[in-house]
């Protein structure tokens, strides 16, 4: 069965600095996608970044990048130049070729001015 673990319930970062959110996962499938979603207080789920497991190159979207370590089953999210608007819950998610997308429990990110 798929599992996704986020070991940091809360993280804090100073505005303009860099923060890394951790995620580990487990799956027996060889084909899968990994995602980071952001959930601000509005509750809306917003896709931040995604990574295809078959790609060795780490995905990057502007200030957001991932460190994908396939052998270690690790998928961390790095936020550079943190902004006040980055404050939210962040969820790591795993989807293989079944239709069940599994989410971690989330990390609450606080950005201090």
């Amino acid at each position, binding site marked *: 069965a798929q599992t*996704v673990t986020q070991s940091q319930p809360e993280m804090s970062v100073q505005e303009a600095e860099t923060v890394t959110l951790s995620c580990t996962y487990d799956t027996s499938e060889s084909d899968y*996608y990994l*995602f980071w979603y952001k959930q601000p207080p*509005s*509750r*809306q*789920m917003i*896709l931040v970044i*995604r990574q*295809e497991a078959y790609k060795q190159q780490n995905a990057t979207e502007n200030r957001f990048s991932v460190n994908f370590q396939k052998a270690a089953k690790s998928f961390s999210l790095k936020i550079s130049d943190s902004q006040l608007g980055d404050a939210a819950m962040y*969820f790591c*998610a795993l*989807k293989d*070729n079944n*239709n*069940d*997308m*599994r*989410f*971690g*429990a*989330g990390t609450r990110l606080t950005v201090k001015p």
Partner: protein
Amino acid sequence: NAGVTQTPKFRILKIGQSMTLQCTQDMNHNYMYWYRQDPGMGLKLIYYSVGAGITDKGEVPNGYNVSRSTTEDFPLRLELAAPSQTSVYFCASGPGVWGEQFFGPGTRLTVL
């Protein structure tokens, strides 16, 4: 495009009542999903559909039913509401099994 819309935004039910949560998407996506999010937790899949007339169970289907008569609509039915069904419910849609899922704004349901 409105994307994925859900109604109602909030609802309070008494134990034993029934209700239907509505979900509509205007992106012509074949795949649609229902999740629940309990306080302090991630989302868990209740049911999903890969096209009109095709539905299947997710991780936590007990106490729920779905139907998919059109591409656009994917209602979730709660029969005999229980306090354990107090949660925020999200509907999502996507273009394929590997694609991004687009989420609705959620419905906060309280069962008292």
